[in-house]
């Protein structure tokens, strides 16, 4: 089957007519010898080989097809044609498929070789369908070749006058933002939720006089009225109040105004006034 005739015109641009020539030539089994560049990949070759069988693609013999493809690859190698990797990958896969089809059936193998063969056949059918559709499409009466629009249309012309709109508010707002953007930047520190040590000292000093019994430090904290939807604020304020109040009680204890007691770690911190003692 070795034949040096360059049967396939390896042009990039193959017109439809040339293309049909290609297929017809290749359809003659004696002349299956190719300049590899003329082919659109292994599936393309397989399709031509399959069509060589001159039967409905649904009835092609996959084994025969595999045999022919491998023969084709061998020929190409003998001619020292450079084969792209995907041709060889296909050859390897088909070799595997062939042996799987020939060997006794192994029910463990999934997908089964029959399924693989069927898939290949379906792919060929699909490619073939599109190839034929392309040919039919190109053969239609086409505008500019068979059918013509008016040769010298006067042309339609709409002059679009652009009108812009902008509302008064847009204008003023834009100026406001320009001004804001270019004004010296003013940093405003957000007011944090704190109770100062001074406030705590004043509060505890005032309240301690009334409680002679041990009282939990909690009782000295200001009553928190939860702010609407601002749990974060509330939580921060409470923490700050607790810290400041604790500091204040330590300070007052140092001055002998009150005494502190805690039964154990994490037990409530209790405080009470120191008798009359002023120190």
């Amino acid at each position, binding site marked *: 089957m070795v034949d040096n005739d360059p049967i396939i015109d390896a042009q*990039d*641009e*193959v*017109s*439809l007519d040339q*293309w049909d020539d290609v297929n017809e030539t290749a359809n003659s089994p004696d002349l299956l010898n190719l300049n590899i560049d003329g082919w*659109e*990949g*292994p*599936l*393309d070759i397989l399709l031509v080989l399959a069509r060589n069988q001159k039967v409905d693609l649904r009835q092609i013999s996959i084994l025969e097809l595999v045999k022919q493809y491998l023969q084709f690859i061998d020929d190409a190698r003998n001619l020292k044609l450079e084969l792209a990797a*995907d041709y060889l990958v296909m050859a390897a896969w088909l070799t595997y498929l062939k042996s799987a089809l020939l060997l006794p059936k192994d029910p463990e193998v999934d997908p089964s070789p029959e*399924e693989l063969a*069927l*898939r290949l056949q*379906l*792919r060929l*059918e*699909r*490619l073939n*369908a*599109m*190839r*034929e*559709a*392309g*040919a*039919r*499409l*190109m053969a*239609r*009466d*086409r*505008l*500019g*070749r*068979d*059918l*013509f*629009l*008016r040769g010298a*249309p*006067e*042309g*339609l012309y*709409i002059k679009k006058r652009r009108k812009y709109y902008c509302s008064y508010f847009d204008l003023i707002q834009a100026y406001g933002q320009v001004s804001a953007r270019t004004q010296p930047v003013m940093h405003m520190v957000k007011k944090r939720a704190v109770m100062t040590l001074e406030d705590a000292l004043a509060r505890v000093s005032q309240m301690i006089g009334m409680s002679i019994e041990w009282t939990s430090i909690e009782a000295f904290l200001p009553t928190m009225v939860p702010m609407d939807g601002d749990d974060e604020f509330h939580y921060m304020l409470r923490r700050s109040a607790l810290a400041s109040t604790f500091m204040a009680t330590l300070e007052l204890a140092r001055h002998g105004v009150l005494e502190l007691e805690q039964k154990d770690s994490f037990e409530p911190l209790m405080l009470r006034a120191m008798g009359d003692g002023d120190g």
Partner: protein
Amino acid sequence: MDKQDIRAVEATLFASEKPLTIREIEQYVENDIDVKQALNVLQEDYDGRGIELVKRGDQWHFQTAADLSYLLRKESDQLRKLSRAAIETLSIIAYHGPVSRAEIESIRGVQISKGTLDVLMETEWVKAAGRREVPGRPLIYIVTNDFLTHFGLNSRKDLPGISDLKASGLLDPVDMAMEELDLSAGENEQNDVELNEDNSESDGV
């Protein structure tokens, strides 16, 4: 229907350098004209003349009658120059569209060079139509109204042989066909109907 209105639609389409949608025609004629009806009247008027009024997708235009092509046929380089890869890719986009590049490649069994899609986009027969919502979000392609106009198709439903291809499942992906083979053969018909419905949605291409 008022003769003057029909004349207005006729003149507008006749003067236009390109096919027009009804909406575009409306921009030129008086507001209250029923353009659709005028087009139907015109289509009948021109039936059998040397010029015919045709609808391609949602666009209308006058063109020379198909049977006179033997007098006027003109081969232009631009039309001759499509490569085989481009023709196949175009068919796949037309028949399977919207399709991603990977889907085209899986049907052709070969990678498509960047140039192939570019050439098709340049003819304005093919355009990108968004992305497929799958991993990688690939671009998907469809044929345009220009495609329909050039090949004389009213819609994709008129693509040669498309109903046969659909009926035989050849427009389904291989995986889907395999699944179907597993299912009972009786369901094929139902499937077919669904596919036809799909098509009606894609008419506006």
